[in-house]
């Protein structure tokens, strides 16, 4: 019971405090890849804690094969004591249902998000094959005055450039824009976005997940800019962004909270300050710890039982006991 409560408390704490920790100081903007990983680590950790909390309620009722049970009778009893829940079978059943429900809902929504993306992309790609003109390998031109550069990631990956965009960009700027899109496709940002979107749809009441998705959307753009900036000048990339964004657009509402484009341009203009090695290592370690904690919480009582003398610490001890 303690394990289950600990896990649920941990999930609740992480869901409420996690976003604040990750937003603090804007460090994710300096290390977007690490930022993306950290947000997903928090999300995975919360989901895993909830699932494991359900499973922890199940432990006392787990059946052990007769032979092993005789051998380890004292140990199994001790284990059951550690995980013991008031309510017995009912609590265990509730735990199992809860764990399965969380897991199934998450899996279903992430799969649905992936499937939707694949379907939309295939439909878009079909139409593209008929009306776009191939320019060079992997790039097609769409005859339209509206400036646009975008890509279709996945199996039939390609970049689409509108003739309006071609008019606004010089060769270097076009190269920069293409490098940005290639980074999206090479690093499969579509997959991480499908995951974060799926999870946010699965549990819409939890602010953490929608926050994680919004931030992931923003951070993949910064990451693609950084990747592109390895082969092109940062200022050229900023210029390309401004040229495309500066064109007269139909009266369309800008996304809430200001445009990511402005953040990106400011970031490209200012001297690049990647996160230092120490803080980077600290952030990676924290992400790893976040992922490990739920498992530790679940295994905690078992480890405690393992310290009792009649519980063999490992299989080697079991082997010697059989002899």
């Amino acid at each position, binding site marked *: 019971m303690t394990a289950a409560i600990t896990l649920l408390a941990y999930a609740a704490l992480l869901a409420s405090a996690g976003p604040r920790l990750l937003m603090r100081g804007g460090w994710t903007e300096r290390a977007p890849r690490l930022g993306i990983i950290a947000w997903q680590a928090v999300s995975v950790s919360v989901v895993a804690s909830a699932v494991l909390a359900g499973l922890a309620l199940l432990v006392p009722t787990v059946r052990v094969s007769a032979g092993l049970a005789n051998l380890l009778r004292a140990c199994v009893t001790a284990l059951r004591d550690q995980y013991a829940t008031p309510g017995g079978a009912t609590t265990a059943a509730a735990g199992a249902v809860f764990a399965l429900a969380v897991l199934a809902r998450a899996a279903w929504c992430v799969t649905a*998000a*992936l499937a*939707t*993306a694949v379907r*939309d*992309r295939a439909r*878009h790609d*079909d*139409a*593209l*094959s*008929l*009306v*776009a003109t191939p320019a060079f390998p992997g790039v097609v031109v*769409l*005859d*339209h005055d*509206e400036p*646009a*550069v*975008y*890509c*279709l*990631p996945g199996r039939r990956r390609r970049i*689409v450039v*509108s003739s309006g*965009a071609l008019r606004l960009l010089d060769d270097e700027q076009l190269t920069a*824009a293409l490098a*940005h*899109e290639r980074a*999206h*496709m090479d690093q499969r*940002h*579509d*997959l991480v*976005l*499908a995951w974060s979107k799926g999870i946010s749809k699965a549990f819409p009441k939890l602010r953490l997940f929608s926050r994680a998705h919004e931030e992931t959307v923003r951070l*993949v753009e910064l990451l693609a800019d950084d990747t592109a900036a390895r082969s092109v000048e940062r*200022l050229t990339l*900023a*210029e*390309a*962004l*401004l040229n*495309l*964004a*500066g064109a007269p*657009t139909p009266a*369309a*509402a*800008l*996304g809430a909270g200001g*445009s*990511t*484009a*402005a953040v*990106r*341009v*400011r970031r490209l*203009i200012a001297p690049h300050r990647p996160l230092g090695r120490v803080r980077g290592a600290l952030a990676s370690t924290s992400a790893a710890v976040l992922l490990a904690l739920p498992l530790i919480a679940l295994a905690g009582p078992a480890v405690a039982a393992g310290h009792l003398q009649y519980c063999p610490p490992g299989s080697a001890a079991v082997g010697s006991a059989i002899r």
Partner: protein
Amino acid sequence: MPRFGDLEAAIMDAIWRADAPMRVRDVLDRIERDTEPAYTTVQTVMDVLFRKGWLTRVKEGRVNMYAAASSRQDYVSGLMDEALEAADDRTAALATFFERMDPQENAELRRLLGAARSATPQKPAP
């Protein structure tokens, strides 16, 4: 097994250029390809395009007359709408490079960019 994608594009192109309902035979005559495809192949692909909703089909006597369901420009606009939608509200299907920006903000950022350009020494011309 030839890929039908190219042939689909060639057929749609011929129909859009003709701008009038056509028989399979007419389309076959107008397709610009190095090796002329077989009549039955064109017929099959046009049937596929009809079922995809790209072509409409009307029977005149014993002959099927095909026409484009929408103009080429309609399809291009539809694709661009999807791209613009993706730019405003990101979907996992498309990743866009361009984003919309407030014109005032754009002017301000351009000024900053200009200042940064003049601050950093220009790379010598190769």
